[in-house]
């Protein structure tokens, strides 16, 4: 087969887990109807939340921009349904801390009227790289693998890119949205890849796929033959968790590692999720910005596990009802996969651009929390760790809050995949401890920055005060040269020092009007 690397890449790290994907891959993707009410979080892009450009009460059409980015390189948000903006308020959203975020709430009018300015772009491959990146940014496209990094910003790297890596390695159990996308829309993904290659200025693309998705491989092969683009190659990766992480897939496909603190672009590779490529192709073909994404709704707690193309902002409950509703005794609801996912507090939470999977877990389906036992130093965790860290040493550092050891042991390189938790015979919750420790390190770094800032301000103030004192001195000298008596100088000196100490009786009229540099608030 042309363009096929048949030798699967086998990682030395990672764990084998039951994939449990076939239940949700047996149906084609279901197109969900627009929800009655869309709750669109303003946090749909890594970085700070977007700023709304609509007001409550305003009518919006599907695909209309409703929020703009606050920092350069960010992307905006588009209305996923047509209707009326009923509120912009804090709502409970999908997040680790079960916190609320500002959301735009649109009540649908049922017509799903499409925004008039929504036009396909003919022949995208004739556009320049910068134009392509601008279009991608306008379409609100972010990394749909879950990181939500703005795609256009990632493409506009200054490094020379040898190849674009399309990540179709969906290593986490249960999740199958990328697999069905490749199975049913392989040509879309490949067309997106062509546009992304153009945008990144590279002439090579490697589509990484897992060995356990044969149907998707066939579909990709057929699409490649029709497309007849020999720049796109397919590389196979053994199904092992977490080979789908950005750094992990890169290591497997290129046999090169990204150093700590560096980005894949620093060694000349760009990694994009296949869903992102499909979103790019969709936008150029139809003019449709990111208003929906494919979400796997699965688990033994739903009667008909399925992949759904749902509008952004659809509540989880509506997706569950498309998947045949709950069955049996309800257990937990997990957003994301069973390894890295987050338990949802209820099913009224809306889905965002980052959500790839909703699992309704039946009781006993996934292992429950077990009592934690002491570490027996079996070093299973270090064999499993895909970042090649020493989790048992990190555990000691976490327990003793040893910030220096965090740095030497590379805590910040932990990808929080949960492999160490999975293999730990003592059931130590290592990953959550590392997550917490990483937060601590980030706080300490922020504190360090703040201290530097405070020092600069303090020094600036010292310089200013010294300058003012010198000016005053010079004035006194010049006045004494004009023949003012010593007693007059003493009086002036007393007044000057009185001002410095903010003598309460100082009349504002005697304020140092002679100091033109003095800022009113900082005299």
């Amino acid at each position: 087969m042309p363009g096929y690397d048949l030798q699967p890449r086998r990682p030395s790290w990672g764990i084998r887990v039951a994939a449990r994907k076939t239940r949700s891959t047996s149906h084609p993707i279901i197109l969900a109807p627009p929800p009655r009410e869309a709750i669109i979080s303003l946090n749909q892009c890594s970085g700070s939340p977007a700023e709304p450009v609509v007001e409550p009460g305003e009518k919006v059409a599907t695909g209309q921009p409703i929020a703009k980015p606050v920092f350069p390189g960010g992307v905006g948000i588009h209305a996923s349904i047509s209707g009326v903006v009923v509120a912009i308020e804090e709502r409970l959203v999908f997040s680790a801390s079960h916190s609320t975020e500002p959301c735009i709430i649109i009540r649908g009018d049922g017509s799903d009227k499409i925004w008039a300015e929504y036009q396909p772009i003919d022949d995208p491959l004739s556009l320049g790289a910068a134009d392509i990146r601008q279009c991608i940014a306008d379409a609100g496209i972010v990394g749909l693998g879950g990181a939500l990094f703005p795609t256009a910003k990632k493409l506009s790297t200054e490094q020379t890119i040898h190849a674009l890596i399309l990540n179709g390695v969906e290593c986490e159990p249960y999740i199958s949205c990328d697999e069905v996308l490749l199975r049913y829309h392989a040509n879309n993904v490949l067309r997106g890849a062509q546009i992304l290659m153009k945008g990144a200025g590279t002439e090579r693309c490697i589509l990484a796929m897992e060995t356990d998705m044969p149907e998707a491989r066939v579909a990709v092969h057929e699409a490649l033959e029709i497309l007849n683009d020999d720049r796109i190659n397919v590389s196979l990766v053994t199904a092992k968790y977490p080979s789908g992480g950005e750094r992990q897939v890169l290591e497997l496909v290129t046999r090169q590692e990204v150093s700590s603190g560096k980005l894949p672009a620093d060694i000349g590779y760009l990694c994009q999720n296949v869903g992102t490529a499909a979103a790019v192709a969709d936008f150029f073909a139809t003019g449709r910005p990111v208003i929906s994404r494919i979400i796997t709704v699965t688990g033994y707690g739903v009667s008909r596990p399925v992949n759904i193309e749902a509008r952004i902002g659809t509540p989880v409950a509506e997706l569950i009802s498309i998947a045949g509703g709950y069955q049996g005794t309800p257990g937990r609801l997990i957003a994301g996969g069973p390894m890295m996912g987050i338990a949802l507090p209820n099913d009224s939470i809306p889905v965002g651009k980052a959500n790839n999977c909703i699992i309704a877990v039946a009781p006993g389906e996934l292992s429950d929390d077990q009592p934690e036992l002491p570490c027996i130093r079996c070093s299973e965790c270090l064999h499993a760790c895909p970042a090649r860290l020493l989790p048992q040493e990190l555990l000691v550092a976490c327990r003793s809050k040893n910030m220096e050891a965090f740095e030497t042991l590379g805590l910040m390189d932990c990808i929080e995949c949960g492999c160490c938790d999975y293999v730990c015979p003592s059931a130590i919750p290592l990953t959550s401890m590392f997550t917490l420790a990483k937060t601590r390190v980030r706080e300490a770094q922020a504190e360090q920055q703040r201290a530097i800032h405070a020092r600069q301000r303090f020094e600036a103030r010292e310089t200013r005060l010294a300058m003012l004192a010198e000016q005053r001195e010079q004035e006194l000298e010049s006045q004494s040269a004009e023949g003012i008596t010593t007693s007059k100088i003493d009086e002036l000196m007393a007044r000057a020092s009185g001002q410095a100490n903010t003598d309460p009786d100082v009349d504002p009229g005697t304020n140092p009007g002679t100091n033109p540099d003095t800022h009113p608030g900082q005299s």
Partner: protein
Amino acid sequence: MAILVMSGLAATIALLLIVAARRLPGDKQAVVEQLNTLLPQIQCGRCDYPGCRPYAAAILAGEAQINQCPPGGEATIQAIATLLELPRLAPDRSFGIHDALTTAVINEKDCIGCARCLQECPVDAILGARFFTHTVITDECTGCELCIPSCPVDCIRMSMRGAGAPQNQS
């Protein structure tokens, strides 16, 4: 013979090193700078020195102990002890106790615009002018509490950092 040569060599080198250490002044200013970066830069003056850098200089001059910085707490003591190769000390509570970070908040309803707190703030984090209401630029405030005694109407209080500006009490 070999032993004599080696020990003679060692003695000469030792002598040279001792002379060099006496003659060449260590870069004191650089050490003060380094020490200063370890301090929390609150500039509160609770160490009895008018700011973090003077305290750093005093430590190096042997005038101050390394445990006089309440905002830094044990972490700062540890860092200084490691840098200067001194034994760790317990925090000296007579200078104050280590507590959560705070920022100053001016109750704008009570502020009379006397401009006294403006002079006290070591990082110019209070915005205002005489006869105009003052306010604290929360992002710049280090929580040194130096503005509190200067207020004649007691309208400044400390609030937990990150709690956001609380509503002014009526």
